[in-house]
């Protein structure tokens, strides 16, 4: 008897991204149930503790945030706070709250509630792993009056304002804050969002019900009142194949985690693909500069020009994806378009190598001082398959300029040890984040320092942006950091992580938020409502 372990179940760990778009539909109407197939169990129904991408999508509907990052304009707008001020040192932020917003237990979303939430998040500590990063240096919140709260930090925290728009800093009622962390995960929380938890069956489904009387959606949302749908059902379906089949056969109205191999099938079935790049670090190769072959930066700079990103997107991915144009993806705050530095130019790459003393050796790979140019690139498994196939194509591209690349799949369970050991020349990866401070987290000793960055102009820029309260001056530092990361050969960006969603043609109004998680308050179904 044999049982194949479903490698596709591993895809449960697939990073989902973002996207925006409406599916055209006729005679849409209020009511009904929308069924969404997601890739993995949310594990935790507390937005403040939820970690995985699918968990954040499920949890996004329960809570509102202080601010709203408009995915189209990139501007921070009001939500539970209508306006705010920050001091120039980025240590003190004052929020003015809107009137009338309540949690679903009837208690008001007031200054005390905001204070209780931030205090509670700090108490959750490592359990709220995202929030812990966002609230780094938190000192206290001061209730100025019932509608005004001031949040203070012991050290500059420039990314905090952006962070207040995330699901991780979504606000919950006092009754939930009083619960133990594990109970909040298992039973959900009381939020002020457009949907309420109705039922959760582990590994099967999360059923949400419309909150009547909801009237405080962000300004960019067309629907000013309660959600149109009666119910929202998230079905947990680990198999990519089954998810697409559910959509095709009408058993689901929307599916997350549509892989490049499935997009044609979805389109042929007359369904709609909606995609949006995820903010954060793009998929790419980062360079461990403590290793001898890449230490002087010449080889990484050559690889930078030898990688044909367009070919990777055309061959491995789908038209929904875009080649990277910086180490940050386009929707990330502070992103600058450096695409001109990243066009494929094998001749330029060859010249960099030759100038640096690397000459063709006996087997076609280059050598210098008797050392063969062979680099180890690690990537983490389980992998959706995209890392491996992208790296195999890049391996071919680099072979042409005489650079040998050896792929080393590494179990994700060893990720921390791998970063600490640094037993690699190159490492594949990405990270989701709305704020460019992710660069400091990934590329400096304040994180695990995957690239072994040492003191210098790049480190200065990364530290400076974190404490810069003036948005324009901060943007300058972020732009400088992106430029140095590419020019000095620390990072070789490849493609933008992208959330690809399949939608039934009957559905309209599915929106992406700035983090590329779906929002359902505007969603209507054509034809008969419920199922």
């Amino acid at each position, binding site marked *: 008897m044999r049982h194949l372990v479903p490698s596709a179940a591993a895809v449960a760990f697939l990073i989902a991204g973002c996207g925006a778009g409406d599916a055209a539909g006729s005679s849409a109407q209020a009511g009904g149930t929308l069924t969404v197939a997601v890739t993995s169990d949310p594990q935790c129904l507390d937005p403040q503790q939820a970690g995985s991408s699918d968990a954040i999508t499920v949890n996004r509907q329960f809570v509102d945030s202080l601010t709203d990052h408009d995915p189209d304009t990139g501007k921070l707008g009001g939500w539970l706070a209508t306006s705010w001020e920050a001091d120039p040192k980025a240590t003190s932020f004052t929020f003015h709250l809107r009137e009338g917003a309540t949690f679903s237990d009837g208690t008001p979303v007031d200054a005390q509630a905001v204070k209780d939430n931030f205090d509670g998040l700090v108490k959750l500590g490592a359990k709220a792993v995202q929030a812990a990063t966002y609230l780094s240096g938190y000192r206290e919140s001061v209730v100025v009056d019932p509608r005004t709260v001031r949040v203070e930090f012991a050290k500059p925290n420039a990314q905090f304002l952006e962070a207040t728009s995330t699901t991780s800093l979504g606000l919950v009622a006092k009754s939930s804050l009083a619960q133990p962390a594990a109970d909040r995960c298992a039973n959900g929380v009381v939020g002020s969002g457009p949907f309420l938890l109705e039922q959760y069956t582990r590994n099967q489904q999360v059923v949400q019900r419309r909150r009547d009387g909801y009237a405080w959606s962000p300004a960019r949302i067309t629907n000013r009142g309660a959600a149109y749908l009666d119910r929202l059902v998230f079905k947990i379906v680990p198999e990519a194949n089954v998810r697409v089949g559910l959509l095709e056969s009408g058993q689901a109205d929307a599916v997350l985690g549509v892989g490049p191999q499935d997009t044609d099938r979805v389109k042929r079935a007359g369904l709609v693909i909606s995609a949006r790049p995820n903010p954060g670090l793009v998929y790419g190769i980062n360079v461990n500069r403590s290793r001898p072959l890449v230490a002087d930066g010449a080889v990484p700079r050559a690889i930078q020009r030898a990688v044909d990103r367009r070919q990777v997107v055309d061959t491995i991915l789908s038209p929904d994806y875009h080649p990277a144009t910086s180490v940050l993806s386009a929707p990330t705050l502070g992103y600058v378009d450096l695409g001109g530095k990243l066009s494929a130019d094998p001749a330029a790459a060859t010249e960099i190598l030759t100038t640096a003393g690397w000459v063709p050796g006996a087997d076609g790979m280059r050598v210098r001082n008797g050392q063969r140019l062979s680099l180890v690139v690690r990537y983490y498994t389980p992998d959706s398959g995209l890392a491996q196939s992208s790296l195999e194509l890049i391996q071919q591209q680099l072979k042409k300029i005489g650079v040998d690349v050896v792929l080393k799949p590494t179990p994700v369970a060893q990720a921390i040890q791998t970063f600490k050991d640094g037993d690699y020349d190159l490492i594949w*990866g990405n990270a989701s984040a709305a704020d460019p401070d992710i660069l400091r987290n990934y590329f400096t000793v304040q994180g695990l320092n995957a690239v072994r960055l040492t003191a210098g102009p790049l480190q200065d820029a990364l530290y400076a942006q974190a404490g810069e309260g003036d948005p324009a001056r901060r943007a300058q530092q972020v732009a400088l950091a992106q430029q140095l990361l590419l020019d000095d050969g620390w990072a070789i960006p490849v493609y933008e992580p992208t959330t690809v969603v399949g939608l039934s043609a009957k559905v309209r109004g599915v929106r992406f938020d700035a983090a590329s998680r779906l929002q359902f308050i505007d969603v209507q179904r054509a034809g008969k409502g419920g199922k």
Partner: protein
Amino acid sequence: MTRYVAQRAVRALFVLWAAFTVSFAMLYLLPGDPVSVMLGGSAGTYTPAQIDDLRSQYGLDRSVPGQYVTQLWHALHGDFGTSIRTGAPVAPMLAQALPQTALLALTAFVLAVVGGLGIALAATSSRRPAVRQVLLSLPGIGTSVPTFWVGLLLVDFVSFRWRLLPALGNDGWQSLVLPAVTLALPCGSVLAQVFAKSLRDTLREPYLDTARAKGAGRARVHLRHAARNAALPAVTLSGIIVGNLLAGAVVVETVFSREGVGRITAEAVLGQDIPVVQGAVVLGAVGFVLVNLAVDAAYPVLDPRITTGRPVPRKEADPRWSI
């Protein structure tokens, strides 16, 4: 009889302890840690202090022998700790999922026994060599196709194309059909293979010639005389099949997105959620041990010689064959 059962019960307890200990050792000797799995490739964006906080919150910084003793003591009291990933207590989590898996496994088991034994009986009793050949080759196909693939095919045709049954979930008998058939297929096939072989061997025994000579009809020879004696290997196998059903549930529950112990196990293994994996291993071992105890208890009923413990040559005349 009492001594026989007591002996088996002591062995069963040893198996449970061994399952707990071996799974503990394996999980703790594996390189890697649950915090890495949780943070994934973006682990590199967290500070060493944050990572240490996480490790200590999940109790991963305690000494391994200390953890073993504490966990074994708690496990003896039915407490398997809390999930690293969700913080939920493990025992209730498994207890809640168990009925779904039990229902699935039981249905699959019944399908496997009825289908497997049915095919074997049909094949050995058929007078036409062509029919017999086709029927005998079916189980071979059933054991060689991967469960995972069969499940996907069934979902694709029965649910997505013909829209006869739901593709997933735990709602009612309709959602049970496809997973149970998928799970039953490899088990039923093995049962059919073993039972058909044993039936053919038994049918060649001299005592059946005697039965035929005394004028017993074809059906009587087959069902009354041969089947009972031929059933022993199949009964032994049923015990093993239950183990395979639990393993198969991991795959089937994932393909059909069902709630159940198999699905919890799969997720826990991928996430290195050690307490959950241990709970699932021990639960699986309990199931396996109980079924095998039942099988051991069934032997003496099928073959009274077994209780006496006296060695009996296989071909010795069976007192029951006289007509």
